[in-house]
C-alpha cells in the first residue's frame, strides 16, 4: 500500500481494488478529503459530487466483491463542466447555465457509468470552453498547482489542475483548439485529443462543431489508453462519430520505437517561443531518437502560420450559431423584460461573459452578408490546404512532434486584456483540430519549476501510434512522477 491513496494511477488503484487491499469507498474518501484540503487554493472544482461519489463507490465495491470490475470501476473521475451529467448541475462555467440540471447523460458519462466509474465532481473551465487560461470562467479562476499565481491553461484548466493536484485520479476534458493538450502541458499531466469522430460528443455542450472533441487527462499514458478504451467508439446519437472498431489501446504500449519515422515541423518552433521550451522539446526528441525512432528535423508545413486566423474565423463562426440557442426560453438564465426581443438581448447581455460575447460578435460578423466569402469561405479553403499538408506529411512520417505551447504557464491576469496574445498560446495545438487529427501532450520537462509539454500528432485514427510513442518516452523519463508542491 502506498503512503498516500491520492498518489495512485488508474492501473495502480485498479490492482489494489481488485485484490481487495483497498475499497472504492476508502479511495474516494481519501480524494474527497484531499479536495477539501487543496481545492480552496487550486479551485479546480465547480461542483464536488461527494454524496453521489460515495453511493457509486459502494456500488463499485459490491461489484468488485463479485469480480465484475472493469479497469475504471470504483475509481474517481472529474468531468469538465461542459459535459452533461444527469441530475448534476452542468454550468459550462457560465452565468447563463449556472443552474442547469441536465435531464440526460452525455454518451461518455453513460460509458463511464457502465464501467462503474465514480463521478467525484465537475471541473471549472473557460466559459463555454472559450479561452486558454480558465480565467474566462464566470465563476472563478483556477490556479496552477505548480505555482498558484499562474494559470493552469485552458479551457480544460479545472480538469488538468485537478489531476495535477491529485484531487482526482483522472479527468475528462474537451478540446476545440488545444483545450485538453495546452492545460495538460501547463500542469504536467497527459492530455489526449482523439481524432475528430473517435469519441461521441452527444451531451457535450457545443462550441465549434467541426472541431470539438472529448478526451482524457491522466497521470500517465497507460491510464490514457485505459480511458480511451472505455470512451471511444461510434454512437448513433452523434452523426459525426465514425463507425470504426476500437482497438485495445493498451496493447500498443510496448516501448518499441524501431522503424517509426518522426517528423519535426520547423514552423512549430515559432518566433517568440520561450528558449527553455524549445531546448526541452529538442532534448525530448533526441531521447525519442535514442529509443529507436528515426527523426527528420527538416520537415516543413508552410501553411502553419495561417492556422491561427483560420481557427479564429471558423471557431467563432460555429460558436455564434451554436450559442444562438441561449435565448432564455427553454433553460438557463432568463431576463424578464416587457418585450420578447429585449428579454432575449438582455438575457444574452447579462448571461454571457466578455470572451463569449467577443467570439459571438466575431463569428456573426464573419458569417454576415457581404463578409461570408471573404472570411468564412476563405478560411474553409485554407483549412483544406492545412489538412492536405498534414496528409502529405503522414505519407512520410508516422507522427509529428512539436512543443504543446510556446511558453510555460503565464501569470494570472497577464494576458487577460489582450485577446490576441491569449490566442497565441494555442498556436501549436489548433492546426491539429483544423485537420481533425489525434494529438497528445505529455510531460517533457520543467523550466524553473514550471511544466513543459511535448505534443505528438498522429494520422486520422492513428491513436495507437502516438500512444505508443508517448508511452516509450514517458517510461524513459520521470517527469510524470514529479508532484507539485501542494
Amino acid at each position, binding site marked *: 500500500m502506498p503512503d498516500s491513496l491520492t498518489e495512485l494511477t488508474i492501473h495502480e488503484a485498479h490492482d489494489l481494488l481488485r485484490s481487495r487491499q483497498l475499497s472504492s469507498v476508502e479511495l474516494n474518501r481519501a480524494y474527497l478529503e484531499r479536495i477539501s484540503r487543496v481545492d480552496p487554493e487550486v479551485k479546480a472544482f465547480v461542483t464536488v459530487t461527494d454524496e453521489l461519489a460515495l453511493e457509486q463507490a459502494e456500488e463499485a465495491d459490491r461489484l468488485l466483491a463479485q469480480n465484475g470490475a472493469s479497469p475504471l470501476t470504483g475509481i474517481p473521475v472529474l468531468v469538465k463542466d461542459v459535459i452533461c451529467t444527469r441530475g448534476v448541475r452542468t454550468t459550462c462555467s457560465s452565468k447563463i447555465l449556472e443552474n442547469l440540471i441536465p435531464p440526460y447523460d452525455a454518451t461518455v458519462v453513460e460509458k463511464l457509468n457502465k464501467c462503474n466509474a465514480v463521478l467525484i465532481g465537475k471541473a471549472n473551465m473557460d466559459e463555454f470552453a472559450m479561452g486558454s487560461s480558465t480565467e474566462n470562467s464566470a465563476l472563478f479562476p483556477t490556479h496552477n498547482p505548480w505555482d498558484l499565481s499562474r494559470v493552469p491553461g485552458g479551457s480544460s484548466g479545472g480538469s488538468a489542475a485537478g489531476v495535477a493536484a491529485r484531487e482526482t485520479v483522472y479527468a475528462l476534458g474537451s478540446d476545440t483548439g488545444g483545450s485538453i493538450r495546452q492545460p495538460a502541458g501547463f500542469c504536467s499531466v497527459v492530455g489526449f485529443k482523439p481524432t475528430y469522430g473517435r469519441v461521441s460528443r452527444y451531451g457535450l455542450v457545443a462550441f465549434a462543431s467541426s472541431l470539438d472533441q472529448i478526451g482524457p487527462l491522466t497521470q500517465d499514458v497507460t491510464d490514457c489508453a485505459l480511458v480511451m478504451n472505455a470512451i471511444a467508439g461510434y454512437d448513433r446519437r452523434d452523426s459525426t462519430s465514425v463507425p470504426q472498431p476500437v482497438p485495445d489501446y493498451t496493447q500498443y504500449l510496448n516501448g518499441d520505437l524501431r522503424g517509426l519515422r518522426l517528423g519535426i515541423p520547423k514552423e512549430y518552433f515559432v518566433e517568440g517561443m520561450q528558449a527553455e521550451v524549445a531546448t526541452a522539446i529538442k532534448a525530448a526528441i533526441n531521447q525519442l531518437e535514442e529509443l529507436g525512432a528515426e527523426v527528420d528535423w527538416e520537415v516543413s508545413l508552410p501553411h502553419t502560420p495561417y492556422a491561427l486566423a483560420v481557427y479564429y474565423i471558423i471557431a467563432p463562426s460555429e460558436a455564434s450559431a451554436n450559442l444562438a440557442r441561449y435565448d432564455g426560453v427553454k433553460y438557463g438564465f432568463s431576463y424578464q423584460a416587457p418585450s420578447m426581443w429585449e428579454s432575449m438581448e438582455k438575457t444574452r447581455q447579462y448571461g454571457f461573459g466578455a470572451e463569449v460575447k467577443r467570439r459571438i*460578435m466575431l463569428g456573426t460578423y464573419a458569417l454576415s452578408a457581404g463578409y461570408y466569402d471573404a472570411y468564412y469561405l476563405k478560411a474553409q*479553403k485554407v483549412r*483544406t490546404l492545412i489538412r492536405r499538408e498534414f496528409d502529405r506529411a503522414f505519407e512520410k512520417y508516422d507522427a509529428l512532434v512539436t512543443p504543446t505551447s510556446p511558453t510555460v504557464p503565464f501569470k494570472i491576469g497577464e494576458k487577460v486584456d489582450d485577446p490576441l496574445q491569449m490566442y497565441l498560446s494555442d498556436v501549436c495545438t489548433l492546426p491539429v483540430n483544423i485537420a481533425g487529427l489525434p494529438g497528445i501532450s505529455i510531460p517533457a520537462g520543467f523550466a524553473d519549476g514550471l511544466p513543459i509539454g511535448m505534443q505528438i500528432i498522429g494520422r486520422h485514427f492513428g491513436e495507437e501510434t502516438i500512444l505508443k510513442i508517448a508511452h516509450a518516452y514517458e517510461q524513459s523519463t520521470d517527469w510524470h512522477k514529479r508532484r507539485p508542491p501542494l
Partner: protein
Amino acid sequence: MKLSREEVLHIARLARLGLTEEDVDKFREQLSNILENFEILQQVDITDVPPTAQSVMLQNVMRDDTVAPSLPPEDILANAPRREGDCFRVRAVLE
C-alpha cells in the same frame, strides 16, 4: 480599418446581443484588431481549392427511423424559466 459604431451595433443586433456603450467602444477596438490579423489569409492562393467543412469526410449520414422513447416532458420542462402546463411560456412574438 476600424469598425464603425453602426457596424458593431448591426452585428450585435444580428446576434441578439445587448451591449453597453462601453462594450461598443471596446468591441470596435478589439474586433478591428483581430480582423486586421485575419488579413494574413489574403496571401494564400486558394484558386481551385474546395472548402473543408469538417475533417473526416463523412457525408449524408443516415439511420433507420425507429421508434424509441424520448425524455419525459417533466424532465425537459424542469429547467424552463417560465412554463404553463406542458409548454414553455414566452413573451408575445406579435405585438
